[in-house]
């Protein structure tokens, strides 16, 4: 363990190659991508400065994001990106100006580690030197993965623990969302889906146990069900259609054995096993159909819908294997390497007879988003992150439009906000952030969703750099 840590420190100091040897450590103010993996101050408050263009007057509201932000304690470096304590970022957009506020989510995990002054918990992919016991999943819940605006507050979500409730204005942590009885501490994934009726659907996995959640718009539980998965698969996201829930189970299975140091170490990639698809009926929450796809890994889906014949269509970023979970996310946190995204947006067709076809779209990317009014119904466009920029994929033509911010940038998830009263799918804006590590700051960019390649209609600079985050959402004023 200590040998490994020394090796990691060695790798950190020496860098991946000779060129990197000069930039010796984190703390050094070297303008490189590692800036996105630095622990920010406990609180951040600042006004953004307009760099170019003009904010659309109709785009008013709060843009929330969350991501890992605590990267070291007591000289120990966090070993996996997904284990950093969540910090919620809010960009308050209104009357031509933008104010930023950033606050950590005060989870049980964070408070216990603050008290101890060191990392205590073995989590998604990081096992600290002195790991404490694991009593419940929420012991390691970092509330760092996504944001669900609900009932006037925002929930900071993690892979499989409880939602953490955050005040929408002050960003103060209000506490763990107290689902009662058998739902107390039950896994609630970071990718709930809100349909056109405002209801929220989600899943949560622990081993082969999968909890299906159906919540009312205000977060009250309408229905839950425990289903048993055919395999303990590492599943991060899912999709809903008008009638169905669609679960994609990559062949990354929890059968590694041994003494796993963290959650992901329990899992093994099985290139000889299929990616299993389960289709559940939304009313009965029973499995209606099963499909098998070639062995692929995925984090995120964009959307799914079914046509009149019962064929389900969806699109997702598929990768050849789970390298990101077991290696890349560690390399990023430890400052070793920052490879370009490897996911290929893939249109997946699931006919009612149980077959499946895959159509791979151009480019590589991650963090797919689409017009939220189309959740569960037919969509044509998916937006996402590519290396140094964003892109819009047209599922009808198979083409994509791209925009690049240029070198020394790290682009983040584009969130679609429809224009009020819009009927056209592309009538709205993409609000997104980009770490401009060349200039040592995070920028906010707003795009017209119809003209991604034209570049942002407004770009503003934060007075500081924010750690790289995962997901966000826009709450229109």
């Amino acid at each position, binding site marked *: 363990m200590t040998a490994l840590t020394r090796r990691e420190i060695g790798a950190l100091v020496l860098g991946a190659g000779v060129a990197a040897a000069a930039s010796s450590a984190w703390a050094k103010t070297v303008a490189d991508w590692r800036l996105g993996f630095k622990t920010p101050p406990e609180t951040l408050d600042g006004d953004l400065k307009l760099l170019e263009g003009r904010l659309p007057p109709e785009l008013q509201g709060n843009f929330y994001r969350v991501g890992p932000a605590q990267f070291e304690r007591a000289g120990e470096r966090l070993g996996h990106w997904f284990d950093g304590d969540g910090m919620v970022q809010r960009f308050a957009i209104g009357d031509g100006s933008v104010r930023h506020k950033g606050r950590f989510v005060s989870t049980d995990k964070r408070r216990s580690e603050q008290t101890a002054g060191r990392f205590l918990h073995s989590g998604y992919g990081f096992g600290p030197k002195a790991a*404490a*016991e*694991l009593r419940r*999943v929420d012991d390691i819940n970092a509330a760092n993965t996504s944001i669900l605006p609900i009932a006037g507050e925002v929930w900071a979500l993690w892979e499989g623990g409880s939602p953490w409730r955050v005040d929408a204005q002050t960003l103060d942590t209000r506490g763990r969302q107290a689902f009662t*009885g*058998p739902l107390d*501490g039950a896994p609630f994934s970071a990718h709930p889906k809100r349909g056109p009726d405002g209801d929220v659907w989600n899943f949560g996995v622990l081993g082969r146990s999968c909890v299906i959640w159906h919540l009312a718009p205000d977060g009250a539980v309408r229905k839950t069900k425990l289903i048993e998965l055919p395999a303990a698969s590492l599943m991060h996201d899912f999709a809903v259609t008008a009638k169905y829930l669609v679960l994609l189970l990559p062949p990354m299975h929890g059968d590694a054995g041994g003494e796993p140091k963290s959650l992901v170490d329990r899992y093994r990639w099985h290139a000889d096993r299929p990616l299993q698809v389960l289709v559940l009926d939304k009313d009965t929450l029973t499995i209606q159909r099963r499909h098998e796809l070639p062995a692929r890994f995925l984090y995120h889906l964009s959307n799914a819908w079914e046509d009149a014949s019962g064929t389900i269509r969806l699109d997702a970023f598929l990768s050849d294997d789970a390298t990101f979970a077991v290696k890349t996310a560690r390399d990023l946190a430890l400052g070793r390497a920052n490879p370009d995204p490897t996911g290929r947006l893939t249109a997946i067709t699931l006919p009612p007879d149980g077959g499946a076809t895959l159509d791979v779209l151009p480019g590589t990317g991650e963090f797919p988003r689409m017009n939220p009014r189309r959740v569960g119904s037919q969509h044509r466009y998916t937006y996402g992150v590519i290396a140094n920029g964003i892109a819009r994929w047209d599922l009808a033509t198979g083409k994509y439009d791209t925009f690049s911010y240029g070198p020394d940038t790290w682009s983040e998830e584009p969130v679609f906000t429809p224009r009020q009263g819009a009927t056209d799918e592309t009538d709205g804006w993409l609000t997104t952030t980009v770490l401009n590590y060349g200039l040592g700051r995070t920028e906010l960019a707003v795009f017209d969703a119809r003209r991604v390649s034209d570049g942002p209609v407004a770009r503003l600079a934060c007075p500081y750099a924010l750690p790289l985050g995962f997901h966000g959402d826009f709450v229109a004023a």
Partner: protein
Amino acid sequence: MKYREILFIAAAAALAASSAAADPTVKVTVVGLKANQGFMMIALHSEQAWSGAAVAKIKVAVTAAAMTVTLAAPAPGRYGIKMFHDVNGDGEMATNIVGFPTEPFGFSNDAPVRFGPPSFADAGFDIGPNGAAQTITLR
């Protein structure tokens, strides 16, 4: 008559002497009780039946944040304790939908858990002829 009384006294003395020689009990002090309601459910297990039936059980109404009770083992030996605070008093350890305890629990030696009960190797302790004492922190 007198003879019988003498016999009786002798037998009682012998009994007393033998129980003084072997008193395999464990005094369990439970700390961290968060609510003065419900019951402490404490079970003493042998190594062979660590995940099976208890050799002794006790149910005590919770009236303070720290309480001490005594359990008797059938014989001196190595044992482990599993306990929980039955806050709602339904006699069962409440769990959530995926099986994690939602009522406070504890083990002898305060043995650490890793998404499941500790091993007997961590929770086992000796009860000698003169008994033993354990302090269990609920969590």
